[in-house]
């Protein structure tokens, strides 16, 4: 870790302490040439506040577990350079929005995971290990549609960014509907019709207001909003047929 250039070169970092009830606590952290928001939080925990709770694992933008609210916007803290977000030497870090807070920067992801089940998300295979693998052409339209949303790693950034979730916690949210979109386009999924119906049930895709916050904030540039509008279009088209070519 490089030392700060001057003693005065510090960041003023407000960090949420407590659960659903709590307050922002200010810490002065040395400003360095290269540091991410996760580095700053780690430095506070290591040197100033040992009982500060926060989540991280990979530190390189693979696992998505370090997602937090930075200056009001949901981000992966490991992939957010301080220079990108610092505002006049100030930084505010809170847990993700729209989820119950457990302690400090850690929120309870269970309501988010539950939305996946509500939207019909678990994959259900139709073949056994003794059957040959399904012959899926990578360039077929259905596979392309499914692939477009497949890289989601459940970081809950889109769920946190969504204002409809903020208004109505029963709305399943963009990540679950994006998952449903990948499944209704996956011909190997045995319960496509069931997933389709769940995605359309109350608080499903038709509750989306197309603000586009999910797409705007997705750290890996997925487009959950496109998946949701794809589901909405199925009102007219019905469940997509299996590719013939």
């Amino acid at each position, binding site marked *: 870790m490089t030392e700060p250039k001057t003693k005065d070169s510090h960041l003023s970092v407000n960090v949420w302490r407590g659960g659903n009830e709590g307050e922002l606590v200010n810490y002065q952290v040395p400003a360095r040439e290269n540091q991410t928001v996760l580095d700053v939080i780690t430095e506070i925990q290591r040197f100033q506040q040992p009982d500060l709770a926060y989540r991280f694992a990979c530190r390189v933008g693979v696992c998505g577990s370090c997602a937090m609210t930075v*200056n*009001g*916007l949901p981000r992966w803290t490991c992939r957010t350079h301080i220079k990108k977000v610092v505002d006049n030497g100030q930084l505010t870090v809170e847990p993700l*929005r729209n989820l119950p807070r457990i302690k400090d920067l850690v929120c309870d992801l269970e309501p988010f995971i539950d939305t996946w089940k509500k939207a019909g998300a678990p994959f259900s295979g139709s073949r056994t290990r003794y059957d040959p693998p399904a012959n899926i052409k990578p360039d077929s339209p259905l596979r392309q549609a499914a692939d*477009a949303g497949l890289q989601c790693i459940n970081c809950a950034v889109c769920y946190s*960014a969504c*204002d409809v979730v903020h208004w109505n916690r029963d709305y399943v949210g963009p990540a679950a509907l994006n998952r449903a979109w990948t499944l209704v386009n996956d011909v190997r999924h045995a319960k496509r019709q069931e997933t389709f119906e769940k995605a359309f049930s109350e608080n499903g895709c038709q509750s989306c*207001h*197309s*603000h*586009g*916050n999910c*797409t*705007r904030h997705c750290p890996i540039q997925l*487009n959950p*909003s*496109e998946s949701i*509008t794809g589901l*909405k*279009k199925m009102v007219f088209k019905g469940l997509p047929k299996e590719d013939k070519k």
Partner: protein
Amino acid sequence: MHPLRSHKSYLASIGHRVSGVALAVFLPFHFLLLSTAINGADAMDEYLTLAEMLPVKIAEWGLVTLLAAHLFFGIRVLLLEFTHWPRRINRYAAWIVPCTIATILIATLFIIRVY
């Protein structure tokens, strides 16, 4: 404003919603006025004299402006959701300026033509 809401497409969406709610408040009065025609021209004319009052004129202008905003921003939502957009394009930023211009145009035309 919350940073998650300080972008044009959010404002467009809220504008569409608020104009819809405001129309729901306005339209019953509008239909009430129209319904007076059932009782003959005199009954309607009696109510139409109200339309000469400045506050009523301003309310009428507001009604037309809201209707235009709701129409154009509603068409925008349909275009966003039911037409194909390449993924590289930020569809949410699209159509906001044309819809705003069209709404202002209708509002201005109404002022010019009616007053």
